[in-house]
C-alpha cells in the first residue's frame, strides 16, 4: 500500500510570507449568466463547484500526472489491476458541520449508477461494482484491468454528502446551496456574479489563504478580455488576441500568461469514405499542412503546432518517441506530399487538384464549429496550404450540436476539432479515445471516441496492455508502438495543440502555477485543478 501525505502537492517558495485574506476575481467567459445551480453532476455548471466546493478522492495533476490524496488518504490496486481499494480520510467535515465518511463516497457512486445522466465521466462504463469495506474503505471493482481509469473514478468524480443528497427528490435538479468538503463555500450568487468565501473548517489546516473568490459571468469573450485588460480581474481563462498589446503591455510588471497544451486539435479523417480511406491521401495531407503557420495565423502562436505522434509537447514530452517521429518526419513539405500522391497513382488535374485514376478529385468538405473563429482562421491556412499542394477542402461551419452529431455518427468527410472527452494526465487518455476501435461505433451510430472509425486490432490490444500495467517503462514502450500507428496510418492529423488558457496578474495575488512550478492545470476551467490553484494563492499587498 502506497501511503501519501496530504498537502497542497508542491511547496512553492516556502519562505514567502503568505498573508491570509484578499479577493481573487476570476475572468472566464462562460457564455451565460449564472443560473445559481451548483450541482456538481450537471455538466453545464459543474465547473462552478467541483474543485472549490466539492472534491475528488485523489487530485491527479492533469499536466504532470502527479497524484495527491484528497478525500482518500491512501489507495491500492489489486495484483490484477482490476480492484482498487481506497482508504477514506478521517477528520474531514462537510461545510454544514456534518462529518464526512465512507458512506458518502459509496452513496455518491451509487447515485451515479442510478442516474446515468449524472455520470459525466461514465464511471459506470468502467466499474462493475463499488463496495464498502469496514468503516473507512471503499473497494472499486473494474470491468477489466484499468489502471488509467483511476483518473475518471478517483480524480474526476466529485463526492457529495449523503445526508443531503439522499433527501433530494430529483438529483438532476438545481442545487442552489451546495454543501461540500472543499476549501470554499458558495456565499452569494446573482446572475452576474458568484461569491465564494473561505471554508473555515477546511480539512487542510491553514488553507486557503484567500478570503474571497469572485466569479463574474461573461457572456462573450470581448467584454471578458476588456475586463481583464483593464485590471479588474486577477485570473483569466480565455483566448486573448495579440496578448502582448492587449494584456501584457497594460501592466508589464504584473501581467503574465502561460498556455500549457492539454489536448490536440485534429483533422479527423473519416476512414470509411472513398479516397480518404487511402493512407497515401492522409499522409500527403499530413505533409501538406504548415502546422506552425496554422498555429501562428489561427492562434497567434499561442496554441503550438501539433506533431503527428499525437503526444502533446511539451506537456508529455517524455512520452514522445523522437526517433520514430524523425524517421517519418512529417514536416511541412508540399513536394513530399506530391511525391506520396503520385506514387499512389494520383495525377494532378488542370485545376491543380489531384484525382485518382477514375477521375475522382481530391476535394473534401471539412466541418467546423461556427463561432470558433480561431478554427476558421486556422482552416483558412490549412485550405490554402492544401490547395497549393493539390487537395481542395471546403469549410462548413455548423452549430455545435449539428457538428457534434455529425462527428459522433461519422456523417462527415473531414472534421476539425478535438475530442469531446476531457483530457487526461498522460497521452494514453487522448490516444485511446482517438484510436481504440472499442470506443467507436458503426457509421450512423454514436461513437464515444475514434470518430474517424480507425480499426486496427493490434493497436486496440496495445491499449489493453497499457491499461493492465503499472510499470512505467512498459507503458512507455507500448506508447511508442501506438505512436508508430499514428505516424504510419495517419488516422487523424494533429494540427495544433489545445491549451489551457491562463492569464494572471501578480499585482495583488501571488502563488500562481507557472511553467516551472506546474502544481496544477492553471485555467480556471480545469476541474478540479482550479480548487488546487486557489488554495495556493495568497494576497501580496
Amino acid at each position: 500500500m502506497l501511503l501519501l501525505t496530504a498537502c497542497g502537492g508542491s511547496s512553492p517558495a516556502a519562505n514567502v510570507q503568505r498573508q491570509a485574506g484578499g479577493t481573487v476575481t476570476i475572468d472566464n467567459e462562460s457564455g451565460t449568466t449564472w443560473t445559481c445551480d451548483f450541482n456538481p453532476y450537471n455538466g453545464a455548471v459543474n465547473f462552478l463547484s467541483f474543485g472549490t466546493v466539492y472534491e475528488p478522492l485523489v487530485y491527479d495533476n492533469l499536466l504532470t500526472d502527479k497524484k495527491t490524496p484528497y478525500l482518500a488518504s491512501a489507495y491500492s490496486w489489486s495484483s490484477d489491476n482490476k480492484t482498487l481499494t481506497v482508504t477514506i480520510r478521517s477528520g474531514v467535515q462537510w461545510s454544514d458541520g456534518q462529518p464526512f465518511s465512507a458512506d458518502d463516497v459509496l452513496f455518491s457512486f451509487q447515485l451515479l449508477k442510478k442516474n446515468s445522466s449524472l455520470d459525466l465521466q461514465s464511471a459506470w462504463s468502467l466499474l462493475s461494482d463499488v463496495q464498502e469495506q469496514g468503516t473507512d474503505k471503499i473497494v472499486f471493482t473494474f470491468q477489466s484491468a484499468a489502471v488509467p481509469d483511476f483518473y475518471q473514478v478517483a480524480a474526476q468524480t466529485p463526492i457529495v454528502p449523503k445526508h443531503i443528497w439522499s433527501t433530494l427528490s430529483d438529483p438532476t435538479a438545481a442545487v442552489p446551496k451546495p454543501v461540500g468538503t472543499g476549501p470554499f463555500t458558495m456565499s452569494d450568487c446573482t446572475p452576474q456574479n458568484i461569491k465564494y468565501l473561505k471554508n473555515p473548517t477546511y480539512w487542510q489546516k491553514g488553507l486557503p489563504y484567500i478570503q474571497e473568490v469572485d466569479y463574474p459571468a461573461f457572456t462573450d469573450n470581448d467584454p471578458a478580455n476588456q475586463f481583464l485588460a483593464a485590471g479588474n480581474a486577477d485570473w483569466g481563462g480565455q483566448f486573448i488576441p495579440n496578448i502582448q498589446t492587449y494584456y501584457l503591455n497594460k501592466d508589464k510588471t504584473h501581467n503574465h500568461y502561460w498556455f500549457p497544451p492539454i489536448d490536440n486539435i485534429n483533422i479527423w479523417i473519416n476512414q470509411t469514405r472513398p479516397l480518404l480511406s487511402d493512407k497515401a491521401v492522409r499522409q500527403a495531407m499530413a505533409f501538406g499542412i504548415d502546422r506552425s503557420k496554422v498555429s501562428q495565423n489561427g492562434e497567434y502562436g499561442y496554441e503550438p503546432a501539433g506533431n503527428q505522434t499525437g503526444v502533446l509537447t511539451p506537456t508529455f514530452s517524455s512520452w514522445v518517441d523522437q526517433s520514430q517521429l524523425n524517421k517519418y518526419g512529417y514536416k511541412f513539405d508540399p513536394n513530399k506530399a506530391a511525391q506520396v500522391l503520385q506514387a499512389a497513382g494520383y495525377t494532378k488535374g488542370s485545376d491543380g487538384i489531384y484525382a485518382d485514376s477514375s477521375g475522382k478529385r481530391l476535394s473534401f468538405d471539412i466541418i467546423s464549429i461556427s463561432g470558433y473563429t480561431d478554427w476558421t482562421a486556422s482552416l483558412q491556412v490549412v485550405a490554402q496550404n492544401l490547395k497549393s499542394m493539390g487537395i481542395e477542402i471546403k469549410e462548413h461551419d455548423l452549430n455545435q450540436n449539428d457538428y457534434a452529431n455529425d462527428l459522433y455518427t461519422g456523417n462527415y468527410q473531414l472534421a476539425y476539432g478535438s475530442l469531446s472527452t476531457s483530457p487526461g494526465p498522460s497521452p494514453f487518455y487522448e490516444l485511446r479515445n482517438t484510436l481504440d476501435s472499442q470506443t467507436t461505433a458503426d457509421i450512423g451510430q454514436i461513437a464515444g471516441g475514434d470518430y474517424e472509425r480507425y480499426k486496427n486490432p493490434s493497436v486496440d490490444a496495445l491499449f489493453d496492455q497499457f491499461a493492465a500495467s503499472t510499470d512505467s517503462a512498459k507503458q512507455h514502450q507500448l506508447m511508442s508502438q501506438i505512436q508508430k500507428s499514428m505516424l504510419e496510418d495517419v488516422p487523424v492529423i494533429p494540427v495544433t495543440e489545445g491549451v489551457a488558457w491562463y492569464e494572471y496578474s501578480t499585482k495583488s495575488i501571488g502563488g500562481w502555477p507557472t511553467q516551472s512550478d506546474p502544481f496544477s492545470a492553471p485555467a480556471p476551467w480545469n476541474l478540479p485543478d482550479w480548487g488546487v490553484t486557489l488554495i495556493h494563492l495568497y494576497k501580496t499587498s
Partner: protein
Amino acid sequence: MSLNLVADQSRVAAPVGSRSRVLGNLARALVSNRKALTGLAVLVIFALVALLAPVIAPYPPQADLFGQILPPSAQHLLGTTGNGQDIFSQLLWGTRQSLVIAILAGAAATVISVIVGVTAAYLGGIPDHVLNLFTDVFLVIPTLPLMIVIAAYARSGGVFVIILVIVITGWSYGARQLRSQALSLRKREFLEAARVRGERNVYIILAEILPNMTSLIVANFLGAAVYAVLAAAGLQFLGLGDPNDLSWGTMLFWAENNGALLAGSPWWAIAPGLCIALLGGAFALVNYAFDEIGNPALRPVRRRRQ
C-alpha cells in the same frame, strides 16, 4: 435595427410625372437637392470602389502575406489583420458584397412589398384582409430573433442566406406603406376610368398603378437598402454570416473576435464600421431627399434674400 413603424403620411403625396418625365423629374429634383447629391456621391464612390476593387486594391484581400497586426504604414494604409491580411485591401473588396447585399436585398424586399401591398389594395375585400393580416403578422413577429434563427440554421449558405433572411423579415413594412398609397390611388378616377374602359386587372396594376407609385417604390427600395445594410452588418457581426465571405460585416466580426480595438489595430474595426455607416447614411440621405421631393412641404424653407 428596429424600424420606426409609422404611417408616414408625408409619403402618400401626389404622384409625380410620367415614366420618362418621372425619371427626368426625379433626376432633376435629386440633383438639385443637396442631401440627395451628397448621398448619391457617396453611393457612386462606393460603386466605383466595388467595381475597381481588383485594380485599386494593393494586395489580394484574403492572402495572409504579412505580419500580424501591423500598424498603418505606407505599405498598409490601415495596417494588417490578426491573420496578416491587408485591411485596406479587405475594405475595398468588402465593398462589393456589402453593396450587393444592400441592393439585392433592398430590391427583392421592395418587389415583394409591391406585389403584396399593391395587390391587396387593388383587390380589396377578402384578399386584402388576408394579405393584410399576413403583412401584420410579419410586422409583429420579432425580426431580429427570426433573422437569427433562420440565419443560424442556414448558416453555410453564405451571402444569399443573409439576403434571403433580410428579405423575409424586411418586406412587410414597405408592403404596408405601399398598400396605403395604393389605397389612396385606388380612389382616383383614372383607375376607375381604366376599368370602365375595359382594361384587365393585371394591366391596371402594372401600367396604371405602378407608374404612379414610382417615387414611393424607389423610396421604399432605399429604405429597405438601409435596413439591409444594417441587418447584414448585425448578422455578420454575430457570426451568422459565412465568416469566409468578405464584406464589412464579416470584417467587423473578425475584428471583434480579435479584439481589434484594444489589441492594437483599431482601424480593423473602425474602418468597416465607418463604411457601413456611410453606406447606410448615403441610402438614408437619398431616401430622405425623396421625401422632400415627394412632399415639397418638407423641403428646407426658403426665405427671401433681401
